């Protein structure tokens, strides 16, 4: 079996979640790499949208920015941020991939501050389009390394909505009905959410890890699916595509 690093397995596993013919709103970095890998493997007709306005480009290389020229290279349309976000708002976009500094058991994300808002200990970039994508897209997915610093009991600042306080709290919040977090993909496991409580639940463990590893690298109690799957390792072909075609300069997978 090939060697691979934490970023590589996250990208490969994430790519497999995207079905052919779906629409996905992505940012730069790992989400974009996952979408590009999906296009080259199981989802050749995956429709990629970038929040600044690029619709269905033929990506010649990894974009550096969600607004750079590559995001609308040989695209169906170079539109506006409104075109993208309102397509999401109308229910045209199936998936989004997000990240964040912190995530809680309901999939809520913090990308705003650690500490006090007025004079924060650490200031992060803020929502950007993350809250918008998570509010509007049908299925929000997260790619993030598994550790106690990121997986926390309570996020310092709830930037981007997951299942909020769990249960029916999101349904009652006013956010579009039927949207919400779907899968959380880390370097150790795949999680989904238990349908009633909306609590994070481990459903598949990556090679070399156990449920115990995952739990130990999580700041809250994880649920466990009745049958835990074994995540297939990245295939040689997945790794080749990722390393040779998608990210030859290791911008993302070299992190």
């Amino acid at each position: 079996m090939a060697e691979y690093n934490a970023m590589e397995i996250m990208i490969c596993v994430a790519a497999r979640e995207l079905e052919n013919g779906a629409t996905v709103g992505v940012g730069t970095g790992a989400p974009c790499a996952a979408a590009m890998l999906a296009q080259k493997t199981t989802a050749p007709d995956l429709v990629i949208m970038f929040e600044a306005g690029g619709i269905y480009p033929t990506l010649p290389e990894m974009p550096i920015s969600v607004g750079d020229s590559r995001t609308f290279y040989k695209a169906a349309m170079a539109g506006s941020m409104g075109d993208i976000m309102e397509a999401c708002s109308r229910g045209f976009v199936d998936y989004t991939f997000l990240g964040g500094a912190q995530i809680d058991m309901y999939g809520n994300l913090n990308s705003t501050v650690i500490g006090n808002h007025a004079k924060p200990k650490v200031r992060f970039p803020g929502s950007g389009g993350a809250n918008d994508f998570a509010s509007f897209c049908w299925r929000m997915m997260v790619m993030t390394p598994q550790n106690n610093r990121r997986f926390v009991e309570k996020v310092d600042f709830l930037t981007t909505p997951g299942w909020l306080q769990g249960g029916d709290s999101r349904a009652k919040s006013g956010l579009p009905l039927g949207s919400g977090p779907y899968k959380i993909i880390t370097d150790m496991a795949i999680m989904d959410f238990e349908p009633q409580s909306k609590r994070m639940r481990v459903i598949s463990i990556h090679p070399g890890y156990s449920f115990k590893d995952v739990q130990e690298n999580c700041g809250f109690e994880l649920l466990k699916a009745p049958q835990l799957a074994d995540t297939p390792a990245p295939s040689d072909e997945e790794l080749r595509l990722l390393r040779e075609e998608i990210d030859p300069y290791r911008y993302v997978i070299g992190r």
Partner: protein
Amino acid sequence: MNIIDQGQGELFLDPDPDKAREFFRTKNRKQVNKVMDLKDAIARFVKDGDYLAIGGFGANRTPIAACHEIVRQKKKNLGFAGHTSTHDMEVLSAGEVYDRIDVAYVIGLEARGLSPCSRQYMESGKVKVTEWTNYSLAARLRAAAMGVPFVPTRNVMGTDTIKYSAAKTVECPFTGKKVVLMPALYPDVSVIHVHEADVYGNARFRGIAVADIDLANASKRLIITTERLIHSDEIKRDPSATRIPYFLVDAVCEVPYGAYPGTMPYEYFSDEAHLREWLNVEKDPAEFKAFLAKNIFDCKDHEEYIARNGGMKKMLELRAKELLLFKEV
């Protein structure tokens, strides 16, 4: 209107459309020559204390030359719309020109990493911050462009993002559903970089629009920086291509490579090495000070900045990169 929930963030600008109308009523409607030096445009239209918005998307079709000039002129106490502001914010933070900010995305340069300078300034306590999202800020500009005090959206509900915003949640009287009202944002002054404009300010650009059409409509004063001036006959020949009509515009500044070191679609790609230099040099205050002197304060204008960073040879390299001239696709 029963308010179900509302943010506690400060609303930096009045969303009253009647006040905006009174201002817009005073703007000249004639097609007059508005060409001027960028230096003059910034001196004349960006006043200390104004609320500023910058077009484009961080380092894409962003009027970086104008950001440098704002810093060079040591503007102070500006408000700022930080909707995916990346390198533009990095420049403005270096000058500490703003003291209040509507945040959607700040500090970061996307895949390139975070700006230590922007981060320090944002963590200094010197900046008042109200939180939004990219679409929320776009919606606020849309409301202003429509001449109404708000538009509704369906994002942010249930989060701290709305709690630290100045938005309000109400019940829709048609459906009984909750919606968030985003208050109109009429910036005092904005700068948008385009490919082509005539001397009156009729402007066009290629590639993604981001939120620039609404921004142009929403802004009380609008400075256009353009890669090239074109004859007005060319605008008239193809009025479908006009994205920003002249009557919104107060100044037209011809600034070739005006988005450098960012990307200008179909013209030049971003100078990643130089952007990395910015991020690196910020780690050392003394080094950063010298860097700013060299690249902003001691430069007469954008042309000199470019000359100090590779000049025409670099510009041609970035053009080749933008157009993928040496890459098979």
